[in-house]
């Protein structure tokens, strides 16, 4: 839609308006804060609620997970794959715990469903990979970004 604008008398001489525009850009250059975050040196601060890389919480070096299968059930992307097993003391534990990082949509439902507070999503967001990575159990147990 072509809006009908009535420029004032002085606006018709572009000179004044252009000078004002130039003043605005110069003011920005001299006084405004730079919006750039220089990534490797500086990091953006995300909220603690941020859902990044997964990890499995451990207590005294033993994973909290009891392989109850609630997280693969609730997972909308069906990216969690657990094989359950039994320890010497008859306790159930995950023999295999794999998360397909390409399928995961980082919805955080596994974190909500987990009754033992075992699977968690950390604040880490630098997750670029050179291959189609499936996170193994050993990798998840490393407590990256534990909070």
């Amino acid at each position: 839609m072509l809006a009908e604008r009535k420029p004032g008398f002085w606006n018709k001489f572009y000179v004044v308006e252009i000078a004002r525009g130039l003043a605005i850009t110069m003011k920005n250059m001299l006084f405004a804060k730079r919006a750039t975050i220089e990534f490797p040196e500086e990091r953006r601060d995300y909220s603690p609620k941020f859902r990044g890389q997964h990890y499995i919480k451990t207590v005294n070096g033993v994973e909290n997970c009891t392989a109850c299968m609630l997280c693969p059930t609730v997972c909308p992307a069906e990216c969690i794959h657990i094989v359950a097993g039994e320890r010497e003391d008859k306790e159930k534990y995950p023999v295999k715990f794999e998360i397909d990082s390409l399928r995961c949509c980082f919805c955080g439902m596994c974190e909500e469903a987990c009754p033992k507070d075992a699977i968690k999503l950390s604040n880490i967001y630098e997750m670029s990979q050179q291959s189609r990575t499936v996170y193994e159990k050993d990798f998840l147990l490393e407590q990256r970004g534990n909070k």
Partner: protein
Amino acid sequence: MSEQEILFMFLKIGIVLIGLLSVTPIMLFVERRGSAMLQNRVGPNRFGPLGLFQSVLDVLKFIFKEDRAPGHVNKFYFSLAPIVTVIPALMTFAVIPFAGNDFIIANLDVGILYCFSIASLGVYGIIMAGWASNNKYSLLGSLRSSAQMISYELTLGLSIVGMIMVFQSLKLTDIVAGQGETLFSIGGLSVPKYGIFIQPVGFILFLVSSFAETNRLPFDLPEGESELIAGYHLEYGSMRFALFMLSEFVNMTVASALLATLFFGGWHYLPGFESLAAHFAEGANTDTTYMISSFFHGLSFVIKIAGFMWFFVWVRWTLPRFRFDQLMNFGWRVLFPIALLNVFVTGLLIYFGVL
């Protein structure tokens, strides 16, 4: 012509040519970092101190890229066009005195007219590039460019008629020498007879039309990324594109040099430089004094040019692009009558002895 004079001539040509060619990498850097700073960003700052060597990388990239011509172009004109664009751009500087009136490559009697005639040859390269590319966008860009440059050349030429009338000469050396006189003085402060003080309207007209002549924003319709992709240099790559870029920056430099020469006293000292030159030349013989004063004249001129170059960058990242009909309206219905009126009023003022 004695041997010494020939040597001096080669020295002057060397200074001008090296200066003009080295403007491009410097302006690449200034354009990048300047645009970033004007937009609250940081810009490329990784390679070298302050990212200064980024332009070296750019040049290396240009050199090592494959020099490719698409199958549908007219090969002869396609490869001729960048050369035709860049040579007039480099030739224009010949009549501009850059450090005292001896430092001029060719002191022609038609001085300023030579500048305009050579500068207007640059449009041939652009038309050639657009036509030889055999591409609708390129052709549109070059047609726009020719229309725009021809329209704004009128204003460009008329805007300095006032200056020529005041100084009674077409030689740039005479115009610069004339600007050394004092216009009036208030107390101890003397205002020199710079073009900006005696022809303020002419200055604004010349500034606007030189923006249009160099195809810089807000008049960069020949390129117009959003509507014509890249206009006339759409099909170009590697060093051929770099030549177009070079000619744009050299045109900018020449426009800035003309602005400085015609309206800001050319090589005349900036405030404070006279005492600085006198301080360095203390107790030296005539030759050394001459060299030192020439150096400071040249430095003043370069600083003036640099100011205008920065103004080009500053305006580019402030103003949006014109629409084509607005551009033509502005050129023919606003600038052209004002330029004619300026010539008329200047003539009246000279007739009544004010100027």
